[in-house]
């Protein structure tokens, strides 16, 4: 049963110096929702990865372009949307980091980590251009009565 839903929206310019800020907002929010320390850590990592991708691959480091991060929280889950203003990409066509030929590639693990740590990761194209990453994580529920 959802008691109440809140939305927190955060917009930054495309500069890596703001990734700590987004991570710290994420930590604050996961604490409000009540995620355990380890879950919170991986959520924050996933947000960080997607914001870095938005800055680097989406907005191509053009600091005039914004990255919009939206957090929708309830008692049981957090949904995070990360939007950039880039050209978009096809997430089904990125290399598999577990493929032996990619194992020693210094790049290409971000989305894989996001998919590992979050319950849901979806990519879509914004009608006005740019990529939207949607990530959902449910709180671990205690199986006690």
């Amino acid at each position, binding site marked *: 049963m959802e008691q109440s839903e809140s939305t927190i929206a955060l917009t930054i310019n495309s500069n*890596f*110096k703001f*990734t*700590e800020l987004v991570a710290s907002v994420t930590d604050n929010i996961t604490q409000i929702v009540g995620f355990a320390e380890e879950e919170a*850590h991986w959520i924050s*990592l996933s947000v*960080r*990865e997607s914001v*870095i991708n938005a800055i680097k691959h989406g907005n191509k480091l053009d600091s005039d372009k914004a990255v919009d991060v939206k957090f929708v929280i309830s008692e049981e889950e957090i949904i995070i949307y990360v939007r950039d203003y880039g050209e978009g990409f096809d997430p089904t066509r990125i290399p598999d*980091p*577990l493929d032996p030929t990619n*194992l*020693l*590639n*210094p*790049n290409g*693990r*971000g989305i*894989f*980590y996001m998919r*590992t740590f979050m319950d849901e990761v979806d990519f879509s194209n914004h009608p006005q251009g740019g990529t939207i990453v949607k990530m959902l994580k449910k709180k671990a529920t205690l199986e006690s009565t």
Partner: protein
Amino acid sequence: MSLTINQRTVGDVSVLDLSGKVTIGAGSVQLREAIRKLIDGNNKKILLNLGDVSYVDSSGIGELVHSFTTTSNAGGVLKLLNLTKKIQDLLAITKLLTVFETFTSEDEAIKSFNK
């Protein structure tokens, strides 16, 4: 905030004690330079002590991989010491524990270079 790297020599092994964050930005550059210097100085037995690393993201993991391949390509050996639980998880998930030799004891790590 960012990364501090302290360098020591134990026998013929160069130990880099990392402390702080290895993420996009400062941390990566520093690590890259430290490895480059060691190799240029013909110090090719390198042990990265990660015990005090507080945060690593995919760029940080990528940087460890980069350090590993740079060293290997120069005919050297790079191993990891004192993985935190979280670094261990990130390496395991991406099958990198099969790539890196890792240790929980510095003594054993040092000895392993000369076996």
